[in-house]
């Protein structure tokens, strides 16, 4: 166990190094340069561009730039090229904004998908199963932004639920409870929307897992022992059906930083995804690369967590 942890940490550090090199190269190979974002802008005189390039080491060879960048990142001194603010601080602020959206969305997805999928599997072929299948495929096939706009129109005209930003503008003076309620109202629609796609996909997956496990021999053995049907399903079958989801649970960690660009843009939510998107448009390399690096760390941490979890829940796996 300990040797597994040590080994996988070393492996993951090596992977991380390669990720950092490749992502650095890709960003620099991409068309467009930060110094030429707006060549028509009269403020961007050749001298200014030259000064800009010097200041951010863009005149140096790539490998020197690479070393400078990761030196700054690891010492926490990286600054955005756009406004000279600390990148880590900017990301942290945006991260705190995205966090509630992520948490509520994840909780909704994981708590709703399982009951829906399990019920479909138990009553397969019935009316409930067929209608949940229909709605799942409907939600999977409708593009998220389109569905979002339909919902917005419906919700705004009917229930007056706010759909812009994280809080109502200029509410600073009102009472504490009022502010909390305002926040929750703002959170409602984006997180529900963020979750629907996940619920549609995950519940299908739960259903097929459950169906597969239900036809296994050990489920028949449990029935032959005289175990009541609920116990057969929720103890013998479900315990085995859940195993693959342990892996998936580790892999939702990267979602923490990626956020949802589309949802955040639609609802003007000042979150991570939107910041990364804007940084890409502005060729703000430090922000892009830092976000990239952090999500790589989270992906690796996620796979590590799911490996460990797998070992805990499945007695057959010894690493």
């Amino acid at each position, binding site marked *: 166990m300990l040797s597994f942890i040590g080994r996988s940490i070393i492996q993951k550090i090596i992977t991380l190094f390669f990720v950092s090199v490749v992502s650095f190269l890709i960003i620099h190979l991409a068309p467009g340069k930060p110094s030429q974002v707006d060549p028509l802008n009269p403020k961007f005189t050749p001298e200014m561009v030259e000064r800009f390039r010097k200041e951010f080491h863009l005149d140096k060879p790539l490998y020197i730039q690479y070393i400078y960048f990761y030196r700054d990142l690891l010492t926490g001194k990286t600054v955005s090229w756009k406004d000279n603010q600390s990148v880590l601080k900017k990301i942290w602020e945006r991260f705190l904004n995205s966090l509630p959206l992520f948490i509520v969305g994840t909780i909704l997805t994981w708590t709703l998908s399982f009951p829906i999928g399990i019920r479909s599997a138990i009553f397969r072929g019935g009316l409930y199963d067929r209608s949940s299948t229909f709605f799942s495929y409907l939600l999977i096939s409708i593009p998220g932004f389109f569905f979002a706009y339909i919902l917005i129109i419906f919700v705004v005209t009917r229930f007056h639920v706010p759909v812009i930003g994280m809080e109502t503008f200029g509410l600073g003076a009102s009472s504490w409870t009022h502010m909390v309620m305002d926040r929750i109202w703002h959170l409602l629609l984006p997180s529900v929307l963020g979750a629907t796609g996940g619920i549609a996909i995950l519940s299908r997956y739960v259903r097929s897992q459950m169906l597969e496990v239900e036809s*296994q*021999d*050990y489920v*028949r*053995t*449990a*029935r*032959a*022992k*005289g*175990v*009541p*049907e609920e*116990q057969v399903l929720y103890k*013998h079958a479900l*315990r*085995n059906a859940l*195993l693959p989801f342990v892996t998936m649970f580790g892999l939702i960690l990267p979602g923490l930083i990626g956020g949802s660009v589309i949802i955040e843009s639609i609802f003007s939510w000042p979150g991570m995804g939107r910041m990364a998107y804007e940084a890409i448009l502005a060729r703000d390399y430090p922000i892009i690369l830092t976000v990239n690096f952090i999500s790589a760390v989270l992906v690796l941490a996620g796979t590590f967590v799911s490996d460990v979890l797998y070992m805990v*829940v*499945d*007695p*057959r796996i010894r690493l």
Partner: protein
Amino acid sequence: MDNILLSVQDLKFYFIGNERVARALDGVSYEVSKGETVCLVGESGCGKTVSALTILRIIPQPPGKIMGGKVLFNGQNLLDLSEEEMQKIRGNHIAMVFQEPMTSLNPVFTVEDQIQEAIMVHEMVDEKSVRERCIQLLKDVGIPSPEERLKDYPHQLSGGQRQRVMIAMALACDPDLVIADEPTTALDVTIQAQILNLFQELKQKRQMSLLYITHDLGVVANIADRIYVMYAGIIVEQGDTSNIFHNPCHPYTQGLLKSLPGRAKRGSKLHSIPGTVPDPAHKPGSCPFHPRCDFAIQACGTEFPRVCDYGEGHLSRCPVLYENKVPKVN
């Protein structure tokens, strides 16, 4: 006739699909007396396993459907019981050992969890005595150092040991009848012999009945008191072991016996019955075996064969051999 424990009467079990109906059991009748070992013999796909699973009613319905007949256990028709009443029978009065020891145990629970569960669903007992019973059961089925094996997960055991655990689980509540569905098919020959001996030994010690399902006539000769030969969802011949082996009166039974490798002369080709079992969705209304039969006459293709009585409970569904009175002994 008080001695009869299980009596299956004219049981019909169909699988009903969207376009086809597979008649898995087409009026099967058999009996198991107390303390008796009865073998159901037949090739793959002839309905042996279905007939066992139907007794315990653990085939999902739909797609399966019981179309008629009775399953009398101690005089009570199991087909009339509610699901809750049936749960009290399963494992408690009738227990089952399955074919595949590799997949029949739940991989995420320990041996102890699984044997314990078999006891706990039927009896109110405290934890300590359950543990002792688990250990005793593992001892009974011949597992060395049972205390340690209890903590093992199924994947840590060999195939033979897993089958022993399955048997221990089946015996947990001291059932009156154990149904063993090809319990040795997946095991190698030496283990197979050990498991068979174990069955014999346990049966004598515990006064239970055994319904043993197999396609292996070698096994049958060793353990059976009485034999039922199944073909395409019906019983084609039944009788005492010696009658069936020395005086087979149905062409199918004769074919099975001829196919035993031990009977062939060295160097000669092994015998096999030509053709395959008919598709259960397109069975003829006549004798299901007639397309493969050497003795078939025209009537075989038009009439359903009647039962012919040879005495001593030896019955066969082949009027042709009966009327010619020339049961061909090989």
